[in-house]
Structures are given as structure tokens and as C-alpha cells.
């Protein structure tokens, strides 16, 4: 399943701002990303799929957009 990944803040510095990935579900994507960028294992980040925060595993459908979001610092 090809999905779109967008990353923000300090996470984007590690992974790049946006890229495509191939994964069937969120847990697989996360472990693939940690294999590729081991430092991610030490970083705190929230995940949104199609602009909704997701706390558990999520089965992807084609063209889903996954956002990797480090702790917020607006204001």
C-alpha cells in the first residue's frame, strides 16, 4: 500500500518533509521508519492519519496521508 508521509519540526529534520512509503498498517510503517532512521526510536511524536490523531494501529488504504508530529510549540 503506497501512502504519503509528511513530517514536521524536529522529525522532518530526520526523515525529510514529505515522502512516499509502502506499508499495510501504521505499526509496520513505524517499525520501517525506525529501521531506516534509528534515532526516531528515542523521539516523541504523535501521528495523524488523514488529519485525525491516531493512538492505535491503523490499517491503511491507498493514498492515506500520515503526519509525524513532534510535541507542539505554538504561541
Amino acid at each position, binding site marked *: 500500500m503506497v501512502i504519503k508521509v*509528511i513530517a*514536521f*519540526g*524536529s522529525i522532518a529534520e530526520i526523515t525529510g518533509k514529505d515522502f512516499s512509503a509502502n506499508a499495510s498498517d501504521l505499526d509496520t510503517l513505524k517499525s520501517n521508519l525506525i529501521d531506516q532512521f534509528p534515532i526516531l526510536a528515542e523521539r516523541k511524536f504523535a501521528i*495523524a492519519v488523514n*488529519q485525525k490523531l491516531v493512538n492505535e494501529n491503523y490499517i491503511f488504504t491507498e493514498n492515506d496521508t500520515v*503526519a509525524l*508530529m*513532534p*510535541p*507542539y*510549540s*505554538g*504561541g
Partner: protein
Amino acid sequence: MASSPYKKLKMSKPIKNIFSQGPIPPSFIADSIAKHATKKDIGAHSIFLGQVRADVMEGKTVSAIEYTAYEELASQKMHEIREAIFSKYQLTCMHVHHSLGLVKAGEICLFVFTSSKHRKMAIAACEEIVEQIKLELPIWGKEIFEDETHQWKENK
């Protein structure tokens, strides 16, 4: 039962954009206050302004913050905050502006403006909005030091 599209349209307010590039000019804030002169049921305004602070960390001074946001999600979240605030407090109006891009130390990066008949509602709503913005909106501030190194800010 057939649903009425008209009713649905009437109920959902449009999602407002809160972002603009660069610092929020003091003149914009003054104009915003002036625009409320025609709304004569207002008896109280409450304003919060966030200003970029020249923090010193390990001998290095912050010269600016560069803001980025997940704009679509931030606007959606702000819409939800707005709806919740309007149902909790009796406000006449509410305005929120947040900077994107570079804002130098001493410049304004956040402007929250609430108005109501009496002071208590405006003050309480304004404070709650600021707290919600810091907690809920996907916005990131990159603190840029005078030597051009940087670190990522984290809200506490």
C-alpha cells in the same frame, strides 16, 4: 427521513484561517480594536499577545523563532476550539492570529482577542483559548540563535 442540506449548511460555520506570514504588526492589532467601535453591545475586550523572547541558553541568545504548522489540521482544531468556546462563554466575538515563518525577538507571534458584554467572560475565554492553542494546535517553533544554530521549542 430526508435530511435538509439547508439546515446543515446553516449550522456549520466556515473554517477560518488563523495564519499569516511573519510577525503580527502592532498596527494590525490597533485596527482590529478600532473595528469593534461599531459593535455597541460590547463592554469588555480581552487581548493576549505572545511575543518572541530572547531566551539565553548555554550562553547563546535566541534571535528569532521560525514557525511552521500542519495548517489543515491546525485550522480544523482551531475551529473545534472556537465552537467549544462560543458554547461555553457568552462572547460577542473572538479573533485568533498566529504567525508562520520568521518572527524576531521582541515581535508579536500570537494575537488572541475576545469581546463580550462584561469583563469576566472575555478574560476567562481569552485565557482558555491561549492554553488550548498551546496544547492542541500542531505548530512548531524553531528557536534560532544569533550564531545561526537552532533548537526546537517545546511547550510546557
